[in-house]
């Protein structure tokens, strides 16, 4: 079974802090994604990566950056956390787009509260 592990289940940070959310997958997937989930808004893509050191902005990249130095690890960085970044963050991974049978596999989510 694919395992996508997010390092923290709950996180509380102060406004202005630099925050790192870590995600590791064990299936050698090329693609990795960071989503933000808010009630009534569904899941929105922040960033995704299709290879090591490769990244592309999603729908809501403002205030976030990412790092992918190793294939199995994809980090989401909040350079200066703000209260409007309080949310649930979901990491996902998948095989390359050319593989038709490639659903996303999700981690358990990190609930981040910025005070």
């Amino acid at each position, binding site marked *: 079974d694919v395992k996508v592990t997010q390092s923290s289940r709950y996180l509380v940070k102060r406004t202005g802090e630099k925050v790192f959310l870590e995600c590791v997958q064990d299936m050698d997937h090329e*693609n990795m*994604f960071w989503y933000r989930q808010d009630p*009534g*808004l*569904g*899941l*929105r*893509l922040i960033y*995704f990566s*299709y290879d090591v050191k490769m990244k*592309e902005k*999603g729908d809501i990249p403002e205030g976030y950056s990412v790092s992918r130095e190793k294939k199995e690890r994809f980090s989401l960085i909040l350079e200066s956390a703000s209260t409007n970044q309080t949310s*649930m963050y*979901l990491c*996902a991974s*998948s*095989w*390359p*787009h*050319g593989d*038709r049978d*490639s*659903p*996303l596999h*999700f*981690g*358990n*989510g990190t609930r981040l509260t910025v005070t």
Partner: protein
Amino acid sequence: AQTVTQSQPEMSVQEAETVTLSCTYDTSESDYYLFWYKQPPSRQMILVIRQEAYKQQNATENRFSVNFQKAAKSFSLKISDSQLGDAAMYFCAYRSDNYGGSQGNLIFGKGTKLSVKP
């Protein structure tokens, strides 16, 4: 841009009964994939069922089946013999078959919260 709409924020079903969750989408593409994901209180997003747009036959996975109407751009999920463990948020999602842009990214609806009454 593609959009996915789930018009039912909340639904309720009696245990052992059948319930249908609605999903419509908007796209100008002819090839794409559609998914239903389930998110129980544990927060783990679990793939329930998937449908390739080029396949006319509706996908089925045990008690879960879809009604895929390509012309109407509709993709509803039917849960038969509902169980207490089916209680969760259900998300409908679309994935383009194009190779450019956000490869493999899913576009999600806002979700339907399903409650199952004993």
